[in-house]
Structures are given as structure tokens and as C-alpha cells.
């Protein structure tokens, strides 16, 4: 077997050194009754050629984004990733290293994490950021737990514009932490409604912008009201490119930002792995989940980086830890930081502007189709549209015509009563021809 370097001779020589008669002897501690007598009922080993054939055949059964016009968003976005990014993250020294516990021989990972944290802090407009979470949704759920620890209050209010799957992930954790979740009804542009539920028991309000319907909102007033009530504002962002065009959560008064970083440097990957961005205020940092990389010096006074403040973490604090997270999204964070470094501020702003421009074209184009109504009042790169037919049906019809025409709200929230609403996103990969094709075929399907 190509991955196993021991030869038969090696094995006997080693058994001799160990002083064991055979390999079975090493397994004596395993109860005889539980030991398998032969191979499990699975196929035998395969060479590269066969494995590649089998999995390529499965891959070929999927319609990839490059295949035709494509408008899915709703928390995962199809952006261009420069080829340098994917090349660099495949370097052995990044790909095949562990969490940087020995900083003297892990400065590559550590410095990149320090730069990542610095970029995330700048993007979100916050004071500090951690070294990544699993994804945006678990970052949001951890944010709610953190707010609970800080405020010691029992209630979290989730806006109706929050991505339904984020709300579900939050609810799962909140339930066992004894936090009551107040989930407001789905609303295209109803962020301000969280204020109605705000009270002295509220630990946090969780608001997304642009929200799952694409609506971008100024959250300054919500932040002020929350703070006045002694609650924290958690801002969720699922489209990281929007940081290049929209006012940052920090500027609007956020206490915690939980964002999905997939849009920068990471492929769609059918939903994972992604990278959760987590940023907060400096004074809350000791309540934050996840790893933190910090600057220090070595024995000769040279600057270096280490994992720090680990007394918050499970490996030191065990049942008193701020979170149970251990392995995070290191390599996706690396892809994020490399892509962000290539973009720079100029590139990010331009990228965001292009996304916005294409979405405007998209909105204008579909709005012109009889029976189609654009619902999103202010958007970055995604819109919700009302169709005269159930969105899921329209979508299947368009898929048959080679167009992946977005995400129906019913897929995310079947009970929201928005079965006729479709979410459509545009990015820098959306061409004018894609929009024209969608418009034409959508009009056809609806007529």
C-alpha cells in the first residue's frame, strides 16, 4: 500500500526489538470478543487510477458553477479565487503542519494568523479578532454564548433578517446553555423590530447586514438602543466582500462581529470548509472563544508570534473554557488572508463595487419582467424577488435550461410563508450575458 512505508522485513525487525511474537500480541488489551476476525465488509485497496476514476465520476454528476449562469448566494458566494492563493495554501509547510504550538518552528503559520487577525479587525472595524472559527454560523452561535457570559442575562433576540440556518445553529447551543432565543418573523427589511423585544433580560440582539434577503441596513440606532438596555449588539455578515463597500459593523457600534469569510479566498465547496471571522472589543477579549495569536519577542529580542491568552481555552481551562473549539479553520483563514493581501484596500473596494454594480444590473433586469417584484430596498450584491409562481418550481425549470437561478426562501425557511420569494446574488463572476440569459429564460418560464 503506497502510503505505508514499512516493509515485511521492517515489521519483523521491529517486532524483534519490541520483543513481541507477532503483531496480534500488541493488541492483547483488546477484548478477544470485540476483535474483528477478518476485514470489514468494504472493498479492498485501490490504486490512484481507480480512486481518481471513481471520484471523478461522482464529480461529473454535479453541475458546477462554471457550467452556466449561476446566481446562488444566501450565505455562500461564488467568487474568483486567484490561482496564487490555492497554490500557496498547498505548500507542504502550510498544508501539513499542525496548530502552531512550537512557535520557534511555526512562525510561518503564526505570522500569517497575526496578519489575518489584523485584517479581520480592520475589515469589521473592531479592535480585535481571533484566529478563526469553523464558519460564520458557529461564530454567531459562539457570539451569543459569549454575550451570555459577559452580560449574564438569559435572552437573545434574533432579527428576522438573520439567515435561518444561522438562527437554527444559535438555537441549538442556546437551548443547552439555558438561553432563551426570541426569533423574529422573517422580514425583508425589519431589523429595527428587534428593538421591540429588547428588555433588561436581553443579553444580545443578533442582526445581519446585508441580511439574508440582501437588505443592507445602518445598525447605529440598534446599537445605541441595545447598549442603553445593557445588551450587546452582535452583527452577522455572511458576504465578506461587502466590507469593501458598506460601513463596517464597528463603525455602527457592534460589540461582536460574527462573519462568514468564505467569499475571500475560499471556494464554495458545497458548504464547507469555510472560515468564521470573529471580532470584538478589546475589553471582551478574555471572554472570546477560539485561538488568538499575539506578538512577542524571542530570546534575542527578535519579534515573533505565539498563541496567547490560552487560559481561555479548553486545553488549559477544560470545563471552564470559553468554548470547546480546538481545531479551527486555519488553512481557510490562510486562504482568506492571502487573498485579502492580494486585493489590498484598493482591490477590495473595486471588487465590492463590481459586485454591487452587477447586482444592480441584475435587479434592474429582473424587475423589468412582468410579474416579478424586487423586494430588497437597499442591497449590496443580493436581492430577494417575488415571483408569481413558487420559487422552487421556477428554479427547477431554469435548472433544466442550464441556469442555476438562486436559492428559494422555502429551502431555508419552509414555514416562513415566502415560497414565492427567490434570492438572487451577483458577483464579479456574473457576466452581463449571464444576466441576460436569466432574464430571458425567467421571463419565458413565467409567461
Amino acid at each position: 500500500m503506497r502510503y505505508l512505508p514499512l516493509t515485511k522485513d521492517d515489521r519483523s525487525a521491529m517486532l524483534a526489538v519490541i520483543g513481541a511474537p507477532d503483531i496480534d500480541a500488541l493488541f492483547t488489551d483488546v477484548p478477544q470478543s470485540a476483535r474483528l476476525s477478518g476485514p470489514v465488509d468494504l472493498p479492498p485497496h485501490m490504486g490512484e487510477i481507480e480512486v481518481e476514476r471513481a471520484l471523478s465520476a461522482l464529480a461529473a454528476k454535479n453541475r458546477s458553477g462554471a457550467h452556466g449562469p449561476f446566481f446562488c448566494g444566501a450565505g455562500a458566494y461564488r467568487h474568483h479565487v486567484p490561482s496564487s492563493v490555492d497554490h500557496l495554501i498547498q505548500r507542504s509547510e502550510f498544508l501539513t503542519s499542525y496548530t502552531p504550538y512550537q512557535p520557534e518552528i511555526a512562525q510561518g503559520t503564526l505570522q500569517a494568523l497575526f496578519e489575518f487577525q489584523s485584517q479581520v479587525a480592520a475589515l469589521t472595524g473592531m479592535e480585535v479578532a481571533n484566529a478563526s472559527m469553523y464558519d460564520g454560523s458557529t461564530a454567531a452561535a459562539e457570539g451569543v454564548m459569549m454575550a451570555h457570559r459577559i452580560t449574564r442575562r438569559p435572552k437573545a433576540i434574533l432579527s428576522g433578517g438573520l439567515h435561518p440556518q444561522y438562527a437554527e445553529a444559535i438555537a441549538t447551543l442556546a437551548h443547552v446553555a439555558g438561553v432563551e432565543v426570541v426569533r423574529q418573523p422573517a422580514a425583508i427589511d425589519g431589523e429595527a423590530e428587534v428593538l421591540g423585544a429588547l428588555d433588561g433580560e436581553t443579553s444580545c440582539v443578533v442582526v445581519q447586514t446585508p441580511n439574508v434577503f440582501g437588505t443592507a441596513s445602518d445598525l447605529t440606532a440598534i446599537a445605541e438602543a441595545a447598549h442603553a438596555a445593557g445588551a450587546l449588539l452582535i452583527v452577522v455578515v455572511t458576504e465578506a466582500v461587502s466590507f469593501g463597500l458598506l460601513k463596517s459593523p464597528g463603525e455602527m457600534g457592534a460589540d461582536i462581529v460574527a462573519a462568514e469569510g468564505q467569499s475571500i479566498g475560499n471556494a464554495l465547496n458545497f458548504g464547507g470548509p469555510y472560515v468564521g471571522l470573529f471580532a470584538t472589543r478589546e475589553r471582551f477579549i478574555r471572554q472570546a472563544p477560539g485561538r488568538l495569536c499575539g506578538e512577542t519577542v524571542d530570546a534575542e529580542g527578535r519579534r515573533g508570534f505565539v498563541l496567547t491568552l490560552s487560559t481561555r481555552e479548553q486545553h488549559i481551562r477544560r470545563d471552564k473554557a470559553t468554548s470547546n473549539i480546538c481545531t479551527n479553520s486555519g488553512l481557510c483563514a490562510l486562504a482568506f488572508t492571502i487573498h485579502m493581501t492580494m486585493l489590498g484596500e484598493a482591490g477590495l473596494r473595486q471588487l465590492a463595487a463590481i459586485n454591487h454594480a452587477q447586482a444592480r444590473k441584475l435587479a434592474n433586469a429582473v424587475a423589468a419582467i412582468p410579474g416579478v417584484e424586487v423586494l430588497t430596498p437597499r442591497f449590496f450584491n443580493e436581492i430577494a424577488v417575488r415571483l408569481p409562481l413558487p420559487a422552487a418550481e421556477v428554479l427547477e425549470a431554469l435548472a433544466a435550461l442550464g441556469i442555476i437561478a438562486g436559492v428559494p426562501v422555502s429551502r431555508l425557511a419552509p414555514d416562513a410563508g415566502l415560497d414565492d420569494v427567490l434570492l438572487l446574488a451577483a458577483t464579479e463572476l456574473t457576466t452581463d450575458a449571464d444576466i441576460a440569459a436569466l432574464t430571458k429564460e425567467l421571463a419565458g418560464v413565467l409567461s
Partner: protein
Amino acid sequence: MTMQTIGRPTRAEAIVETPAQTLTGGRGLLQHEPLIFELGGWEKTGVDLPEPDLDASDLGDLVRTAPVGLPGLSEPETLRHYVRLSQQNHAIDLAIYPLGSCTMKHNPRLNEKLARLPGFADLHPLQPQSTVQGALGVMDALAHWLKTLTGMPAVALSPKAGAHGELCGLLAIRAAHEARGDARKRVLVPTSAHGTNPATAAFVGYAVEEIAQTACGRVDLTDLAAKLGGDVAAVMLTNPNTCGLFERDMIEIAAMTHAAGAYLYCDGANFNAIVGKVRPADLGVDAMHINLHKTFSTPHGGGGPGAGPVVLSEALAAYAPTPWVIHGLDGFTIVDHAPEGSASFGRLSAFHGQMGMYVRALAYMMSHGADGLAQVAEDAVLNANYVKARLGQVMTAPFAGYCMHEALFDDRWLDGTGVATLDFAKALIDEGFHPMTMYFPLVVHGAMLIEPTETEPKAEIDRFCDAVLALATAAKAGDAERFRGAPFHAPLRRLDETQAARKPKLRWRPGDASRVAAE
């Protein structure tokens, strides 16, 4: 072009002592690298994008006007920055990475290639299901392999790492108790457990109680029996445990646990040692996460991403989280929303989990096959016992007998040398090796936990053992200097972690650049 060295071939001169310092601080191929914020790229970009074709915008006040504060680099500078940084890392591709409990094994590049096929990588999680049948097929096949290898009837694929899997398992257990209206309060965890075990149990709202350990490094059944009771929700064990030993009494432990109305959670981080040899189902396990980034070799990536699918027993299967894949007559369907009346505890995260890791892990399993996976366990155990035998000549092992996939030593053998476990580890760096896991598990003083994994050749293990033994001899001979200041040959010397924690500096801030430049 070419180098005209006619008449000037170099000759090896007599040995001249190395000048202590170069003039610029350069060190041959090892490049020092500033932060991206110090490279002057405030207006640069490494991407060429078309001009936005923007008619107008009604975003008004929502537009970000203040500078973000992000530097940019051209593409050549980007490449160089990260290539230089990368060379300051150790990696499994460079040498043995013997971190106990971490299972740093070879990461096949085939898997990287397959995960990047557009048919997997360029796929949106919410595309129409008719357009992702192959992806759902991967999930289904992965589930089949995991269930077959563990003997368990169900698996939840979505957890994103081992700790997330623990969360999933305990949530299922909690849901199962709640479904019976049986609100239990405690989870029993051995002192030797990985930190995520108690952390997860606490996260799920349980009080954590430690189980004592016997002199031979296993669960103390008497203590367990004493602590088990009507308010115990689960017993959380690791098997093989973090001392590298198989919990011989596992079947009995399961019986006791079940008799008390509790569930047996098994931390499967060490599944590598027994895959293809023993099925956790046959040991009485109710839930176990599998770190695909350990046993099934998806790369650790300097800290993730991983994936932590959880296999579940019949008793817990109904509580599995959404989503799941079902196979019907007209293909696969992913169920995002639990049907009416379902006992599912809900959703762990958005979307369907770590697809990129599923592809890699499936390719890894198919490559090995049933035969190869059993060989994985055998070779992993053989390598660890070989290390234990060779190093046991000098180092002290707290527990006698054969180990499973990792060899545990304590620091008794260093008594009186003035060398601590940490110093010893740092000296290994100078010799060209990544240290073993230190000070874990907590039950052993100055623990050194060595896991070679099955993908290490004998020659590399010998090279490692030779270095450890040479250092041990030096330590015993009183050469404490070699250890105290180590490492000397790494990109950096020992780092001041105390200062880092005392005055945390977690990001670059404007103004730092000039300070650094002035230094």
C-alpha cells in the same frame, strides 16, 4: 544565461570559522520577512479587475468612507511573502511530527486534487438537488464507510471538527434524556481526557466529574461505579485513551453505563489505532466522533479545517442533527428540515458540513480499502511500540506493557539533570525534529507523548530515536546548557509567551510600522 567560470572552478578552501553574524542579518536561504503592513503597499493591489459598470447606487450613508487600513501587495510580492513565511514552519512533509494524540500522518496529494475538482469545489450548498447528486453520493458513501468501520447504524456528518463532534454527540445524548423527561446533570470524564471533553460537557450544560485512573492507566471501575448514578447523562471516554492504552474493560464500562441509564460517549480521536481491527459498536459505544483530519488524513493545515462526523447507536440515532442524506428511488435527497415529529436535536451549523474533507477522507479510505485500513492500525501500533521499546531503555514509562498508537513517557528519568520536559523538547528542535506532545495527559508528570503514526518509515523513526537518545545521554551527562537555551538553530530562539499574555498585542496597528523600522 550562463556562468563563465572558465579557469575559476571553486575549490573547497580550508575550513574557516563561521563569522558569527552577517552584515544584514541574512542567514543564507532563510529569509526574514516583515509583516504585510510593513511592506509599503498601501495603494497596491495584486489583482486586475475591470472597472465597475455602476450606474448609480442608493446606498447613501451606508457606504464605507473611512479607510479600512488594508495593505495590498502585487502578485510577485504576495508569492514571496508567503513562501518565505512557509519556510519557517515544520511540516509532516519535512520530517516526523510525533505529536501524541494529533495523528500527524502523510496527506496524499491525490486527495487534494480530487477535492478541487470543479464538480466538488465549485458547488453551492443550496443548488437544486438535482444538480448535486454526485456530491450527495459522496456523503452517502462516506457515511457507509464510517458506519461499516464502526459497526454503528447512523452517522451525523456535519460536525466540523472533533470538538464539534463531541458537541453533537452530547447534544444527542441530552436530547435523548430530555425526550424521556429525564433531566440528568452530570457527565463523567477521566482526568486524562483531552480538554475538549470537559469543555464540551460543560458547554452542553453538564457538570463535569472526573473519573479516577488505575495504576495501569485505565478507568478505575470502582470509582466509576461509585460515581455513576441516576443523574449521570453520559460517560465520556477516549479509547484508546490518551495514555496510548486500550481501555480493556470497555465492554464492562458500557454495561455499567447503560445500567445506570447513561450513554457511553467515546472520543474517537485515537480511532487510528484500531480502525479495521475493532468496531466501537462491539464495545458498547453509543456515540463517537471521528476526526477525519486524524484517522482519515485530511490535512491539518496549521490548525484546521477538520471534520468530526459522529457515529450513533440505535439508541441515539433518532436525535441526530439536520441535515442528512436519504437515498430514494430517484436518487439522493438532502433533508434540511427535520420532518414533523422528528426527534432531531436541530442544526449545528449552516449548510451540510465539511464537503471538502469528505472527498479527501473518502479517497483516503478507498485507497486503503478494508485490508489497508487494518494495516494502518497495525503499523501505527507497531511503530509506537517500537519507539516505546527503543526509548524505554533510557526514558521512564509510567505504564508498563504494550501501548497502542502512541508511547507515553514521564520525566522521572530527567530527575536531577536540571533539564525539564520543555527544555528537552526544545533541544529536539535543534536536532531537526518537532517535539512530542508535552505535559499531556495531565495524569503523568512532565508527560511526553509520542505518536509516530503508520506513515513513518522505520529509518525515520530510528533517526528520531537516535536523536532522543543522544540528547538523553547529554542531559544525563550534565550538558544542561544545550537544553536551557534551546532552540539555537531554529528560525527563532525561545519566545516570551509570558510577555505575550501579559500585554496582549493581537493585531498590527498604524504606527507600529515606523516603530519596527526604527528598531
